[in-house]
């Protein structure tokens, strides 16, 4: 490279890359002294370069100006499209609701309620039920940092199993009715029942003979387990009988079963 005149010293003093950049803003080659006069072609090329620069600027400016309305038109079209599709979805959803009602009506009409059918459907969780039973409230320890003081899916599973063992006819956790394919499991921090998360305090309701249920559960392994958990880890729970326990039907997805009976009963 050539000798810098004037600003040469600042190049050495420049400490950072940015300072150096500012100090050498003018290309070094300009400082080379040329004795021979510029040839005509070089002058012409300078003109061409300037023309290219002007062309670039103009093209970019024109393009931006021309593109703007196009982008806006496109955006409006997209918004309109979204609106139309949303209308369509709304319509379809209305159709879905109507069809679901129709399905329910047809199902209700097609089911011939023989003796025991209703009892079977109640036991399967397919219909809302009401009756006497117990109401169990479970909650994590009040001290959140206590190890093991958090209510787990296993706790709920054991409580529910204990209630079935004690003779419950129908069980619901936080209003979620349990069917034969229901699952109680934890998903991250939350506990889910029928794939819906439940919030504490968890209220478990069971329908059955009030006294029998309560006694059997408390003396069974499940009741003893929860009592031990309460003592060791601070889990809080309360059982009380109730003569008016109501629960909804289990969700449709928990009731659909792909299995078919091997032999049709002749009753």
């Amino acid at each position, binding site marked *: 490279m050539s000798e810098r005149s004037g600003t040469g010293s600042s190049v050495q003093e420049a400490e950072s890359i*940015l300072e150096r950049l*500012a100090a050498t*803003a003018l*290309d070094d080659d300009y400082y080379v002294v040329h004795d021979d006069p510029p040839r005509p072609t070089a002058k012409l090329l300078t003109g061409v370069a300037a023309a290219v*620069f*002007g062309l670039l600027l*103009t*093209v970019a400016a024109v*393009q931006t100006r021309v593109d703007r309305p196009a982008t806006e038109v496109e955006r409006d079209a997209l918004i309109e499209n979204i609106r139309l599709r949303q209308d369509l979805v709304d319509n379809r959803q209305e159709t879905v609701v109507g069809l679901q009602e129709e399905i329910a009506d047809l199902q209700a009409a097609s089911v011939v309620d023989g003796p025991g059918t209703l009892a079977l459907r109640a036991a399967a969780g397919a219909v809302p039920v009401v009756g006497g039973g117990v109401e169990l409230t479970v909650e994590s320890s009040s001290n959140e940092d206590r190890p093991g003081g958090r209510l787990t899916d296993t706790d709920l599973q054991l409580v529910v199993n204990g209630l079935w063992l004690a003779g419950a006819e129908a069980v619901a956790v936080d209003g979620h009715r349990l069917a034969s394919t229901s699952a109680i499991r934890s998903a991250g921090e939350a506990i889910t029942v029928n794939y819906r998360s439940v919030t504490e305090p968890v209220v478990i309701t069971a329908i059955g003979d009030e006294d029998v249920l309560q006694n059997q559960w408390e003396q069974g392994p499940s009741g003893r387990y929860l009592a031990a958990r309460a003592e060791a880890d601070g889990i809080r729970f309360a059982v009380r009988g109730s003569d008016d326990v109501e629960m909804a039907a289990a969700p449709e997805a928990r009731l659909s079963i792909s299995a078919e009976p091997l032999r049709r009963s002749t009753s």
Partner: protein
Amino acid sequence: MIPVIGLVVGVTIGLILQPTVPTGLQPYVPIAIIAALDAVLGAARAFLEGRFDDRVFVVSFVSNVAIAAIMVFLGDQLGVGSQLSTGVIVVLGIRIFANSAAIRRLIFHA
């Protein structure tokens, strides 16, 4: 004189023909303009300092635009297109400001 005529001719051509930039080349245009602006301002400063050289200007103009385009292309290929473009703009921007300041000093002596 020739560069000014060239500039006017270029702008006129652009306004009359209104050519559209192909979609593939669109990301290169802004960077190319910044690079060209750097070369032009450098030339203006050199002109005012009395050391303008046509050859140096043409070479710096072409190489500036080419290198800027290559860096955008490289950034696209590496998946860091916008970052490399930002780097190019920062570096050229500093040079542009430094040259503008020099031009300002030369014209206004302030």
